[in-house]
């Protein structure tokens, strides 16, 4: 059979090169100041979906919520083999915490309608919360398996997966539909296909069209238009979206200040080391 798969993807700042200036005074992220990437484990999620498509056939829809520029992860998904992509972008969605995000994602998924699997990355590297997947599953009233490192078996109505636990791993079998979150160990994401990249390189969402070459839009080739849904399209209540719909608030953000406690410089000499060891022994820290 062929499966309907929804992949949840997020565009994230590359947290490897970040300073405290990357935050705005209100405590939210100053995304414009940061280089962005496809959240690494979301690429593993997409790869898992593509593997299913290769083996059994599937329609893969990739969903992302973010600013207009997040359309880039959708293009990246098309380059790798996604069939359809949807951008959830609306000022009303901005500065959402995980609860408000899962509200918007779950309404978008309801609008898409039929699905057998929803697959996301285990967590996003900007927040490391791992919460959006389970929160979305709860809103859709579907089961979940998190931290999945392998899909062992897939049938018409059941799935067997191996997931990491704190002390090893477990293999569980359950019914479809289900939401999975995938770890980096699960696979090595494929690179974009050259052919698909040529086909979709000009795919764009109309809300980012200002960044686009007007000439291209006027040319007779029709660009692939990435769907953009706002809160009206998914029937979202604005009070449950974005900052307003987020119960958690950032009280403060601090750069990490390393504490200079009572620092003692120990001379690298026989007497320096002898004094150190004696001190630690007399305090019963060693000995």
């Amino acid at each position: 059979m062929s499966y309907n798969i929804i992949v949840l993807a997020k565009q994230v700042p590359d947290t490897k090169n970040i300073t405290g200036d990357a935050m705005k005074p209100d405590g939210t992220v100053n995304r414009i100041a940061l280089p962005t990437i496809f959240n690494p484990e979301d690429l593993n999620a997409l790869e898992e979906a593509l593997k299913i498509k290769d083996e059994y056939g599937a329609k893969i829809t990739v969903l992302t919520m973010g600013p207009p520029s997040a359309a880039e992860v959708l293009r990246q998904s098309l380059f790798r083999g996604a069939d359809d992509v949807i951008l959830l972008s609306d000022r009303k969605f901005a500065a959402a915490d995980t609860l408000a995000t899962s509200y918007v994602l779950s309404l978008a998924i309801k609008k898409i309608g039929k699905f057998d699997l929803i697959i996301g990355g285990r967590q996003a590297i900007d927040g490391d919360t791992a919460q959006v997947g389970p929160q979305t599953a709860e809103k859709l009233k579907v089961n979940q398996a998190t931290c999945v490192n392998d899909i062992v078996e897939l049938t018409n109505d059941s799935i067997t997966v191996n997931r990491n636990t704190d002390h090893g791993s477990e293999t569980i079998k359950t019914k479809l539909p289900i939401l999975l979150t995938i770890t980096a160990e699960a696979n090595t994401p494929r690179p974009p296909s050259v052919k698909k990249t040529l086909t979709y390189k000009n795919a764009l969402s109309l809300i980012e069209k200002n960044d686009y070459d007007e000439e291209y839009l006027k040319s007779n080739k029709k660009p692939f238009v990435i769907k953009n849904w706002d809160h009206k399209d998914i029937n979202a209540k604005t009070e449950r979206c974005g900052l307003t719909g987020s119960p958690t608030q950032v009280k403060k953000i601090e750069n990490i200040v390393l504490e200079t406690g009572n620092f003692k410089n120990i001379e690298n000499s026989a007497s320096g080391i002898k004094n150190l060891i004696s001190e630690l022994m007399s305090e019963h820290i060693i000995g």
Partner: protein
Amino acid sequence: MNEVLVYIELQNEKIADVSLELLGKAQDLAKKTSAKCGAILIGNNIKNHHEILFQYGADTIYSTEDLSLKNYAPLPYTKTVCEIVEKSKPQIVLYGATVNGRDLAPRIASKLKVGLTADCTELQIGDYQKKKKGEIKNYKNILYQIRPAFGGNIIATIVSPDHRPQMATVRPGVMKVKKNDKTNSGKVVNIKTDIPQELLITEIIKTIKIEKNVDLNASSIIVAGGMGVGSKENFKLIHKLAKTLGGIVGASRAAVDANFINADHQIGQTGTTVQPKLYIAVGISGQIQHIAGMSNSNRIIAINTDKDAPIFQIANYGIVGDFNDVIPKLIKTFKTLKK
């Protein structure tokens, strides 16, 4: 004030260490808000855990026993814990940031439509002022949920002032347990549940337990080696110092990535969090992600050739020098003084 509750996670029919650590913290939070501290215990055949929970600080245990709760599964556990929370109306609920804690807590938050902060490393009680459209609202005694964010580059304090309960998952190993041997009993509130068959769809086919070959929290002394140690061969010196002092060997991620030692020894944000009496950092530069896992150690000795290495900023004792030279001196001096 309403209670501070801890969700008790059972792993292989034993209480997870982090649950007891959280009871320690919950007692503090309860005291600061003039409230009591309680435990949420669900599963099958779980009465044998009551005494331990009272000893570690629970005033009340909210318990649901049911055969269908024998093993963790997200659907029946979400339903049961939500029922307990709705009945007991706590101000705060804490969960261990374990794999299953982070599987369960977000579902509960989603169902109850409350806030949840992931993977906290510190919790405090304090006041909060919210300014919105020129209006000022003051909140007293709310939960500060403190966590590293952005790959560990910053520390964020999160609050959920308008929603109850306030909920957080907390990283294992960062809170201190508080045991009181005199208290062996307390109040048990049994809550019945009725789990429909359609929620019982997750079947565990196989579990594989991988014994970690090291328990970094088992010793009060850790000798940790980093990239500066240079090779697996050189790491023998780290092992030797640890053995001499009766400690355990830890490592930075760079040392693990370079295959000097296996990943079970990694300390830091993506490894284990430790707080030994003595931490000796050898050839470790002291990047934020490493410090996140060891800065609560009682005493820190840093051995590094670079006098400007950031590790010296959090160390209590710094030795600028080559470990090849310093470690043998430490071993020799210790052995002499011990006699």
